[in-house]
């Protein structure tokens, strides 16, 4: 898709109490040796306004952003809207759920999902009989 922000089709099953637009943050997900890393662009959020929940293998990222308001100014040109962020991923069992780490810097969320011990490649010795 192009640069524009994508609006969420159906953010959650339940209706939200905040009457705010909700966007789907673009993400990069890559797998390294022992971890899976998720990076999401969420301009406007800080570590206090981002929320990560893990429930029944569903990892949900939400971020709240206060709308921009400039007293005495009127908007003459607009290419983007400000709103909250939400996106959910289903996580497989081989993630060590207790060791998930999250950081936010310059509006970018970085989630590190370490692989659980049994999921790591294990060499099975073959014995000669």
């Amino acid at each position, binding site marked *: 898709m192009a640069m524009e922000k994508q609006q969420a089709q159906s953010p959650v099953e339940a209706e939200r109490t905040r009457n705010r637009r909700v966007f789907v943050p673009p993400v*990069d997900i890559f797998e390294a040796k022992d971890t*899976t890393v998720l990076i999401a662009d969420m*301009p406007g959020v800080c570590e206090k306004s981002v929320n990560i929940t893990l429930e029944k293998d569903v990892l949900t990222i939400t971020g709240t952003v206060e709308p*921009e308001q400039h007293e005495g*100014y009127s*908007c003459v*040109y607009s*290419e983007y809207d400000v709103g909250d962020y939400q996106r959910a991923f289903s996580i497989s069992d081989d993630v060590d759920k207790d060791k998930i780490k999250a950081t936010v810097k310059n*509006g970018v969320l970085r989630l590190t999902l370490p692989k659980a011990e049994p999921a790591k490649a294990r060499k099975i010795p073959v014995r000669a009989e």
Partner: protein
Amino acid sequence: MLWTEEYRRGSDPFREIQHLRREMDRLFSGVTRFRASDFPPINIWTSGDDAIVTTEVPGLSPEEINISVVGDTLTLSGVRPGQEQEEDKTYHRRERGYGKFSRTVQLPFKVEAEKVDAKYNDGVLRITLPRAEEDKPKKILIKAE
């Protein structure tokens, strides 16, 4: 009025079609509301005396963004860091943009370049551009005879 150069998205075979579609929308819509095809997307706010330009540039630190003002044009440029190239790394999704960007925007009036103020917070850049003194409208007093 607005342009961008060499800005790549992950891998998108429909980019050209999207671009064409947007250009068509632009031609026929005739409204000031654009969908951002260029990075970074910007909003412009004005009062009589100054303008505020806000833009979303996540993932850059303040010193990585170049802002320059000449007359009534504002140029934003920089490089969004690409994927960290490491071995044994497999990508499942690549949706975030990366690469060089440069954008020039024409403002509604000439700007006092010395007094431009820029703040960067949580991936959002906010630039305040005061209107140049010589460009401000002159108030003409009407004298009663």
